[in-house]
């Protein structure tokens, strides 16, 4: 890219973006002081490295760089929003470890490195002293996804004799069995039905903000875009609609399931799951509109759901861990700004005009209806139900008679307010000027589409 000769090479920047968070995580195991500052600084270094990587990459090859930058920003935001109660060195260390591992998976061009990133990103959620949930299902699903991916990559190497993704492109190494194992890895990691229950369990019985980061790495969708579509274009053409169908069924299933759920954390997990499944359906649509919509929606879901989980956690530390949506809590009277942030993030998730998700949903619906008219109709239905659910959750948490019996409760503190405002600005400005994001994702979508349809002429 012209004018970017001064930027160091990609391996150096990748190394900085991945290595610095891990170094900081190691530092926090030794020294427990100033955990938030250490976490913020490490993630800001990653943000800078990610930004330089994005700047130096050509427009149609910048998907993973953009995702890296997004995840770095998300982590920086998370370390700022994390309530003091949760801001222990172990928690920050775990978040930084997750950041490094996720970036490793994003930046990899090699199967072994990708596998390492995939497995390492699950480690904090498998270890008792970090973020392991009290329910058994999250750990089990993550283990199964790790095993499935490891098995698939073993099989691919056995038949393809290479670990480089470029060298294996279009060769369908390992055949249907490897393809099936990769799909299984996606199903377990993304929580596609029938393996969806772990996501709600993790959100409810684990720490909410780190769990949101784990879910919003979207490594399952990354596996589809990075490995399945390029490596198995023909097999994907024949069998992949099954995954699309499962994704849409998941979107509908969890949207219906959420209608009677009263645990706010589980509700948010269901919403995340439903909208994430739409990303998968868009990727599978193998149309430019659908893939572009999926990539843009990836950004929207990531920012919005992390914001929602963050706000919920802030409410929990203020008003009690046992918040429930079974009655009206009237928290808007105490925390009006948190209420507005929650409403904007929530509505941004379900396609409010003027937010980025309006564009992503428009493209997703168009793309999925174009490729699969029957399953495509499920997408607006799922989104409509999700909209009702998010409004119900907002109403139950924030509206109703103002609760009494508290001493003064602070609304969003400055560090929380400005971090959440940055997220809101992203989804709103992105919605007002979507072409800045859509055009770039469209160029990347062409590459994904070309990888998925090698016989099709270039658009």
């Amino acid at each position, binding site marked *: 890219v012209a004018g970017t000769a001064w930027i160091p090479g990609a391996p150096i920047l990748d190394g900085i973006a991945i290595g610095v968070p891990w170094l900081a995580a190691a530092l926090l195991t030794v020294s427990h002081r100033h955990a938030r500052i250490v976490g913020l600084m490490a993630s800001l270094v990653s943000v800078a490295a990610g930004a330089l990587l994005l700047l130096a990459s050509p427009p149609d090859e910048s998907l993973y760089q953009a995702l890296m930058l997004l995840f770095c920003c998300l982590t920086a935001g998370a370390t700022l929003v994390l309530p003091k109660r949760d801001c222990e060195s172990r928690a920050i260390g775990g978040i930084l470890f997750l950041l490094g591992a996720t970036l490793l998976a994003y930046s990899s061009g090699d199967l072994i490195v990708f596998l390492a990133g995939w497995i390492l990103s699950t480690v904090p959620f498998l270890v008792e002293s970090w973020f392991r949930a009290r329910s058994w299902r999250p750990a089990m699903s993550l283990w199964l996804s790790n095993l499935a991916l490891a098995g698939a990559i073993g099989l691919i190497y056995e038949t393809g004799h290479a670990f480089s993704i470029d060298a294996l492109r279009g060769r369908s190494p390992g055949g249907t069995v490897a393809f099936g194992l990769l799909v299984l890895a996606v199903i377990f990691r993304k929580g596609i039905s029938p393996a969806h229950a772990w996501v709600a369990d993790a959100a409810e019985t684990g720490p909410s903000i780190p769990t949101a980061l784990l879910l919003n790495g979207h490594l399952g969708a990354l596996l589809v875009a990075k490995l399945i579509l390029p490596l198995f274009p023909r097999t994907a053409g024949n069998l992949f609609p099954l995954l699309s169908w499962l994704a849409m069924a998941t979107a509908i299933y969890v949207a219906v399931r959420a209608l009677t759920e009263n645990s706010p954390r589980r509700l948010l997990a269901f919403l995340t799951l439903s909208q994430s499944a739409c990303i998968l359906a868009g990727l599978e649509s193998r149309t430019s509109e659908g893939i572009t919509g999926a990539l843009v929606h990836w950004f929207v879901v990531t920012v919005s759901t992390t914001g929602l989980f963050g706000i919920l956690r802030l409410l929990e530390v203020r008003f*009690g861990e*046992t918040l429930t949506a079974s009655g009206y809590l009237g928290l808007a009277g105490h925390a009006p700004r948190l209420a507005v942030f929650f409403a904007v993030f929530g509505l941004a998730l379900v396609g409010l005009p003027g937010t980025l998700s309006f564009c992503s949903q428009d493209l997703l619906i168009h793309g999925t209806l174009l490729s699969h008219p029957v399953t495509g109709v499920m997408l*607006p239905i799922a989104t409509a139900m999700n909209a009702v659910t998010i409004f119900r959750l907002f109403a139950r948490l924030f509206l109703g008679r103002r609760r009494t019996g508290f001493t003064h409760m602070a609304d969003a503190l400055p560090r929380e307010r400005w971090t959440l405002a940055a997220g809101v600005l992203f989804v709103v400005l992105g919605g007002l000027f979507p*072409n800045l994001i*859509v055009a770039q994702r469209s160029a990347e979508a062409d590459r994904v589409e070309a990888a998925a349809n090698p016989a099709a002429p270039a658009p």
Partner: protein
Amino acid sequence: MTPGVIFCLLALTWLMGLTPSERVVSRITGLTFTACLLALLPLLSALAADGGPPVVVTFGNWFSVHDYRFPLVLMADRLSLPFLTMTLVLSGLIGQFSATYLHRESGFFRFFALLHLFSFGSLLAFAAGSFDLLIGGWELVGITSVLLIAFFDQRPAPVENGLRVFAVYRSCDIGLLVAVFAMHNWTGHASFAGAMPKLAGAQATAVCLFLLLAAAGKAAQIPFSGWLPRAMEGPTPSSAIFYGAISIHAGAYLLLRIQPLLAESWMASICVIAIGAATAVYGTIAGRASADAKTSLAFASLTQVGVVFVEIGFGLRWVAVAHILGHALVRTLQFLRAPSMLHDYHRMHSAIGGEISPTGRHLEDLIPERMRLWLYRWALDRGHLDTILDRWFIYPLLQLSRLFSRLDNIGRFARAERQAEPPVSMRRPAGQGVE
């Protein structure tokens, strides 16, 4: 754009911790709508004088992916201009009325911010030159409508009713989304700034029926009429502008916009007439058993909008437009006078020296007494529409959700019972406030 910009400025001001005084907010509102109305005058005079061609302003594509484009096209023609003018006039009037009516109300600022957002949404929907853009305005009208129904959020009823209305809106909007997709797929565009997408036969019928679903939801036509009385929980000025004037007629506007397509499909036209006629009959019967002023007015609105649908179905385009304008203005006045309705009646009774005889009594007398009693019960339960919707749609959906919940919970707590120590973020007792 101006109301949208004002909404953004008000929201930003509030986020920065500043809340403008009531006087400032009402002055800004008055100025905004006056300026917008003045800006509309040249267009009005140009189009009204010689009935010239529509004025189309293109801002390029909002976003595009290869052949799929989301055009930013605004259009003023002889159909949209009356609606634009009505929106600006009534929004300005409601703003002035509310400055007094909501004086010292805790939600004063919120009401005005939402009024601006609603006006922006309505103007966008009526000035849109494509169905894509119309969806944007349409959705904004819906969400502001719901937020204003839940305006008095200290009571559960307005919030519950807002949620119900939101569910109906979003369900019916699926029709709009699918119709727009079908237009793109079959004709390559969904713009009507040049000419309507050319469709005929089954395709025209399918698109019209999907759009009718959206229009019926927004206009509270049968079988979605149950939400309208619930929407009366909002403050009177918002009821006036939404359900007496603008939002309730948005569905009719959509049908007027697709009139050329409706003309291609006799089946869709018959559906429009049937739904409109059924709603008109339902509205007049249910309205007669309503005990409160706003609900009676809501049913009266419903009746008139039903008649408008019938007119549209018969292709009487300009009759429908005139009907909408007249109805919107009169109904807004009635809604705004609703809080002092008893006082008005007492004055009228004093003036005429007795009570006004209720209208339609001679028609009631034609019906056998048993039938009248049955109709009375039917009207009291508002045509059982909500009951049917609850029993045949919502209740089974919730049952299904509970079934899914039971399935999900199988084995859920197996490990939780064995483990005593909570994870990192949950190791302090609850409810001790911010640290």
